[in-house]
Protein backbone atom coordinates (compact mmCIF):
# COMPACT_ATOMS: atom_id res chain seq x y z
CA UNK A 1 0.00 0.00 0.00
CA UNK A 2 1.41 3.30 -0.92
CA UNK A 3 0.65 6.52 0.80
CA UNK A 4 0.14 9.44 -1.51
CA UNK A 5 2.10 12.46 -0.42
CA UNK A 6 -0.08 15.14 1.05
CA UNK A 7 -0.72 17.78 -1.57
CA UNK A 8 1.40 20.85 -0.91
CA UNK A 9 -0.81 23.82 -0.66
CA UNK A 10 -0.09 26.64 -3.06
CA UNK A 11 0.16 28.93 -0.08
CA UNK A 12 3.09 27.01 1.31
CA UNK A 13 5.18 27.53 -1.80
CA UNK A 14 5.29 31.31 -1.59
CA UNK A 15 5.66 31.30 2.16
CA UNK A 16 8.86 32.29 3.88
CA UNK A 17 11.42 29.57 4.64
CA UNK A 18 10.21 27.63 7.63
CA UNK A 19 11.92 26.06 10.57
CA UNK A 20 13.95 29.01 11.72
CA UNK A 21 13.39 32.44 13.09
CA UNK A 22 16.55 33.83 11.59
CA UNK A 23 16.23 32.93 7.91
CA UNK A 24 14.46 35.37 5.64
CA UNK A 25 12.15 38.31 6.24
CA UNK A 26 11.81 40.21 9.51
CA UNK A 27 13.63 37.62 11.61
CA UNK A 28 16.73 37.86 9.43
CA UNK A 29 16.70 41.56 8.64
CA UNK A 30 16.24 42.56 12.27
CA UNK A 31 19.28 40.39 13.04
CA UNK A 32 21.31 42.05 10.26
CA UNK A 33 20.30 45.52 11.46
CA UNK A 34 21.09 44.57 15.05
CA UNK A 35 24.65 43.67 14.03
CA UNK A 36 25.22 46.76 11.86
CA UNK A 37 23.84 49.18 14.49
CA UNK A 38 25.80 47.37 17.20
CA UNK A 39 29.11 47.82 15.38
CA UNK A 40 28.37 51.49 14.65
CA UNK A 41 27.47 52.17 18.29
CA UNK A 42 30.60 50.35 19.51
CA UNK A 43 32.93 52.53 17.44
CA UNK A 44 31.09 55.69 18.48
CA UNK A 45 31.42 54.60 22.11
CA UNK A 46 35.21 54.35 21.77
CA UNK A 47 35.37 57.91 20.41
CA UNK A 48 32.84 59.25 22.91
CA UNK A 49 34.79 58.00 25.95
CA UNK A 50 37.96 59.60 24.58
CA UNK A 51 36.28 62.97 23.94
CA UNK A 52 34.61 62.96 27.37
CA UNK A 53 37.97 62.13 28.98
CA UNK A 54 39.10 65.60 27.87
CA UNK A 55 37.20 67.07 30.86
CA UNK A 56 40.20 65.81 32.82
CA UNK A 57 42.60 67.77 30.57
CA UNK A 58 41.14 71.27 30.54
CA UNK A 59 37.82 73.10 30.10
CA UNK A 60 39.20 74.66 26.92
CA UNK A 61 40.16 71.30 25.36
CA UNK A 62 36.78 69.72 26.19
CA UNK A 63 34.78 72.69 24.88
CA UNK A 64 36.77 72.74 21.64
CA UNK A 65 36.01 69.08 20.92
CA UNK A 66 32.40 69.04 22.12
CA UNK A 67 31.87 72.13 19.95
CA UNK A 68 32.24 69.90 16.89
CA UNK A 69 29.15 67.95 18.06
CA UNK A 70 27.11 71.14 17.54
CA UNK A 71 28.09 71.48 13.90
CA UNK A 72 25.14 70.74 11.53
CA UNK A 73 26.90 67.88 9.74
CA UNK A 74 27.70 66.23 13.07
CA UNK A 75 24.11 66.99 14.09
CA UNK A 76 22.85 64.86 11.19
CA UNK A 77 25.29 62.15 12.27
CA UNK A 78 23.83 62.32 15.77
CA UNK A 79 20.37 61.72 14.30
CA UNK A 80 21.77 58.57 12.70
CA UNK A 81 23.47 57.55 15.93
CA UNK A 82 20.34 58.01 18.04
CA UNK A 83 18.33 56.15 15.39
CA UNK A 84 20.79 53.25 15.58
CA UNK A 85 20.72 53.24 19.41
CA UNK A 86 16.91 53.29 19.59
CA UNK A 87 16.63 50.42 17.10
CA UNK A 88 19.32 48.37 18.84
CA UNK A 89 17.68 48.97 22.24
CA UNK A 90 14.14 48.11 21.13
CA UNK A 91 15.17 45.11 19.04
CA UNK A 92 17.32 43.93 21.95
CA UNK A 93 14.21 43.93 24.15
CA UNK A 94 12.43 41.98 21.38
CA UNK A 95 15.24 39.40 21.39
CA UNK A 96 14.94 39.04 25.17
CA UNK A 97 11.19 38.46 24.83
CA UNK A 98 11.79 35.87 22.08
CA UNK A 99 14.23 34.06 24.39
CA UNK A 100 12.36 34.22 27.69
CA UNK A 101 8.66 34.80 26.97
CA UNK A 102 6.69 31.66 26.17
CA UNK A 103 4.89 33.34 23.28
CA UNK A 104 7.91 35.34 22.12
CA UNK A 105 8.61 33.23 19.03
CA UNK A 106 4.96 33.27 18.02
CA UNK A 107 4.83 37.05 18.17
CA UNK A 108 8.35 37.86 16.95
CA UNK A 109 7.08 39.27 13.65
CA UNK A 110 4.47 41.44 15.36
CA UNK A 111 7.11 42.56 17.86
CA UNK A 112 9.38 43.59 14.99
CA UNK A 113 6.71 45.93 13.67
CA UNK A 114 6.09 47.24 17.18
CA UNK A 115 9.83 47.99 17.35
CA UNK A 116 9.54 49.88 14.04
CA UNK A 117 6.45 51.76 15.29
CA UNK A 118 7.99 52.80 18.60
CA UNK A 119 11.18 53.77 16.74
CA UNK A 120 9.16 56.08 14.47
CA UNK A 121 7.39 57.68 17.47
CA UNK A 122 10.63 58.25 19.44
CA UNK A 123 12.45 59.61 16.39
CA UNK A 124 9.50 61.92 15.63
CA UNK A 125 9.99 63.34 19.11
CA UNK A 126 13.76 63.57 18.90
CA UNK A 127 14.68 64.60 15.35
CA UNK A 128 12.85 67.96 15.04
CA UNK A 129 13.99 69.06 18.48
CA UNK A 130 17.59 68.07 17.87
CA UNK A 131 17.76 69.62 14.40
CA UNK A 132 16.32 72.89 15.72
CA UNK A 133 18.99 72.88 18.45
CA UNK A 134 21.76 72.10 15.98
CA UNK A 135 20.74 74.43 13.16
CA UNK A 136 19.93 77.35 15.46
CA UNK A 137 23.60 77.19 16.47
CA UNK A 138 24.69 78.08 12.92
CA UNK A 139 26.13 81.57 12.78
CA UNK A 140 26.24 81.98 16.55
Amino acid at each position, binding site marked *: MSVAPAPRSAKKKSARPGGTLYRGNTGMWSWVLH*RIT*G*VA*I*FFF*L*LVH*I*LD*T*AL*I*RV*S*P*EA*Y*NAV*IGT*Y*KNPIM*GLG*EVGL*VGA*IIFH*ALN*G*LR*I*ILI*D*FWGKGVKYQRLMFWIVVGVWVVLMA*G*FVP*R*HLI*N*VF*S*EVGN
Partner: protein
Amino acid sequence: MSTIEAPRSSPTPARRSGVNWEKWGWIYMRASGVVLVVLIFGHLFINLMVGDGVKAIDFAFVAGKYATPFWQVWDLLMLWLALIHGANGMRTLVNDYASSPRLGGVLKGAIFASAAILIILGTLVIFTFDPCPAVPADQFSLLPSFCPPQ
Protein backbone atom coordinates in the same frame (compact mmCIF):
# COMPACT_ATOMS: atom_id res chain seq x y z
CA MET B 1 35.60 -2.99 15.13
CA SER B 2 34.53 0.60 15.04
CA THR B 3 31.19 1.60 16.36
CA ILE B 4 28.80 3.62 14.31
CA GLU B 5 27.69 6.73 16.08
CA ALA B 6 24.06 7.36 16.67
CA PRO B 7 22.59 9.77 14.14
CA ARG B 8 23.04 13.45 14.98
CA SER B 9 25.40 12.82 17.85
CA SER B 10 27.68 15.81 18.12
CA PRO B 11 31.28 15.29 16.97
CA THR B 12 32.59 16.54 20.29
CA PRO B 13 30.71 15.79 23.45
CA ALA B 14 29.41 18.78 25.39
CA ARG B 15 31.79 19.99 28.05
CA ARG B 16 30.56 18.94 31.42
CA SER B 17 32.93 20.65 33.81
CA GLY B 18 34.17 24.17 34.37
CA VAL B 19 32.48 27.51 33.92
CA ASN B 20 30.37 27.82 30.77
CA TRP B 21 31.60 31.27 29.71
CA GLU B 22 29.53 31.35 26.54
CA LYS B 23 26.39 30.84 28.61
CA TRP B 24 27.33 33.62 31.01
CA GLY B 25 28.18 35.88 28.06
CA TRP B 26 24.75 35.18 26.61
CA ILE B 27 23.09 36.00 29.93
CA TYR B 28 25.26 39.10 30.36
CA MET B 29 24.18 40.52 26.98
CA ARG B 30 20.52 40.33 28.01
CA ALA B 31 20.93 41.50 31.61
CA SER B 32 23.23 44.42 30.74
CA GLY B 33 21.08 45.22 27.72
CA VAL B 34 17.97 45.87 29.83
CA VAL B 35 19.91 48.13 32.23
CA LEU B 36 21.62 49.93 29.33
CA VAL B 37 18.28 50.77 27.72
CA VAL B 38 17.35 52.70 30.87
CA LEU B 39 20.80 54.28 31.37
CA ILE B 40 21.34 55.33 27.74
CA PHE B 41 17.79 56.55 27.12
CA GLY B 42 18.15 58.65 30.30
CA HIS B 43 21.57 59.89 29.15
CA LEU B 44 20.21 60.89 25.73
CA PHE B 45 17.13 62.54 27.21
CA ILE B 46 19.07 64.68 29.71
CA ASN B 47 21.85 65.62 27.27
CA LEU B 48 19.95 66.03 23.99
CA MET B 49 16.27 66.69 24.76
CA VAL B 50 16.10 68.81 27.92
CA GLY B 51 16.71 72.57 27.60
CA ASP B 52 18.88 73.49 24.63
CA GLY B 53 20.03 69.91 24.04
CA VAL B 54 23.45 69.40 22.50
CA LYS B 55 23.94 73.18 22.33
CA ALA B 56 24.10 73.37 26.14
CA ILE B 57 26.81 70.72 26.54
CA ASP B 58 30.15 72.16 27.60
CA PHE B 59 32.66 71.76 30.44
CA ALA B 60 30.40 73.52 32.95
CA PHE B 61 27.46 71.23 32.04
CA VAL B 62 29.48 68.04 32.52
CA ALA B 63 31.16 69.39 35.67
CA GLY B 64 27.73 70.17 37.11
CA LYS B 65 26.66 66.57 36.48
CA TYR B 66 29.84 65.03 37.91
CA ALA B 67 29.59 67.20 41.02
CA THR B 68 26.81 64.83 42.11
CA PRO B 69 27.42 61.16 42.98
CA PHE B 70 24.18 60.29 41.17
CA TRP B 71 25.56 61.08 37.69
CA GLN B 72 28.99 59.71 38.60
CA VAL B 73 27.44 56.33 39.36
CA TRP B 74 25.13 56.60 36.32
CA ASP B 75 28.02 57.21 33.93
CA LEU B 76 30.28 54.68 35.65
CA LEU B 77 27.64 51.98 35.18
CA MET B 78 27.13 53.02 31.56
CA LEU B 79 30.87 52.91 30.94
CA TRP B 80 31.41 49.40 32.28
CA LEU B 81 28.18 47.81 31.09
CA ALA B 82 28.29 49.33 27.59
CA LEU B 83 31.95 48.63 26.88
CA ILE B 84 31.75 45.02 28.01
CA HIS B 85 28.45 44.58 26.13
CA GLY B 86 29.95 46.14 23.00
CA ALA B 87 33.24 44.26 23.22
CA ASN B 88 31.45 40.94 23.69
CA GLY B 89 29.20 41.74 20.72
CA MET B 90 32.24 42.51 18.57
CA ARG B 91 33.81 39.23 19.74
CA THR B 92 30.73 37.43 18.45
CA LEU B 93 31.10 39.07 15.04
CA VAL B 94 34.80 38.16 14.89
CA ASN B 95 33.95 34.55 15.76
CA ASP B 96 31.42 34.57 12.89
CA TYR B 97 33.39 36.35 10.19
CA ALA B 98 37.16 36.18 10.82
CA SER B 99 38.61 34.15 7.93
CA SER B 100 41.41 32.57 9.96
CA PRO B 101 41.93 31.76 13.62
CA ARG B 102 45.05 33.96 13.61
CA LEU B 103 43.17 37.02 12.30
CA GLY B 104 40.39 36.31 14.78
CA GLY B 105 42.89 36.16 17.61
CA VAL B 106 44.44 39.49 16.60
CA LEU B 107 41.05 41.19 16.28
CA LYS B 108 39.82 39.82 19.62
CA GLY B 109 43.06 40.97 21.24
CA ALA B 110 42.49 44.47 19.83
CA ILE B 111 38.87 44.49 21.03
CA PHE B 112 39.87 43.37 24.51
CA ALA B 113 42.70 45.91 24.72
CA SER B 114 40.58 48.85 23.58
CA ALA B 115 37.76 47.98 25.97
CA ALA B 116 40.11 47.45 28.92
CA ILE B 117 42.03 50.69 28.29
CA LEU B 118 38.86 52.76 27.91
CA ILE B 119 37.26 51.25 31.03
CA ILE B 120 40.34 52.14 33.06
CA LEU B 121 40.62 55.61 31.48
CA GLY B 122 36.92 56.40 31.97
CA THR B 123 36.89 55.14 35.56
CA LEU B 124 39.94 57.25 36.42
CA VAL B 125 38.38 60.32 34.81
CA ILE B 126 35.10 59.94 36.74
CA PHE B 127 36.84 59.47 40.10
CA THR B 128 39.69 61.98 39.74
CA PHE B 129 37.68 64.72 38.02
CA ASP B 130 37.76 68.18 39.62
CA PRO B 131 34.79 70.34 38.55
CA CYS B 132 36.68 73.48 39.61
CA PRO B 133 40.26 73.01 38.35
CA ALA B 134 42.87 75.74 38.48
CA VAL B 135 42.77 77.38 35.06
CA PRO B 136 44.39 80.37 33.36
CA ALA B 137 42.47 83.63 33.82
CA ASP B 138 41.01 83.53 30.32
CA GLN B 139 39.27 80.20 31.13
CA PHE B 140 37.48 81.30 34.35
CA SER B 141 34.29 81.84 32.39
CA LEU B 142 34.32 78.18 31.27
CA LEU B 143 33.98 76.85 34.83
CA PRO B 144 30.59 76.02 36.38
CA SER B 145 28.95 78.87 38.29
CA PHE B 146 29.24 77.06 41.65
CA CYS B 147 33.06 77.22 41.60
CA PRO B 148 34.65 79.63 44.08
CA PRO B 149 36.39 82.62 42.48
CA GLN B 150 40.08 81.93 41.83
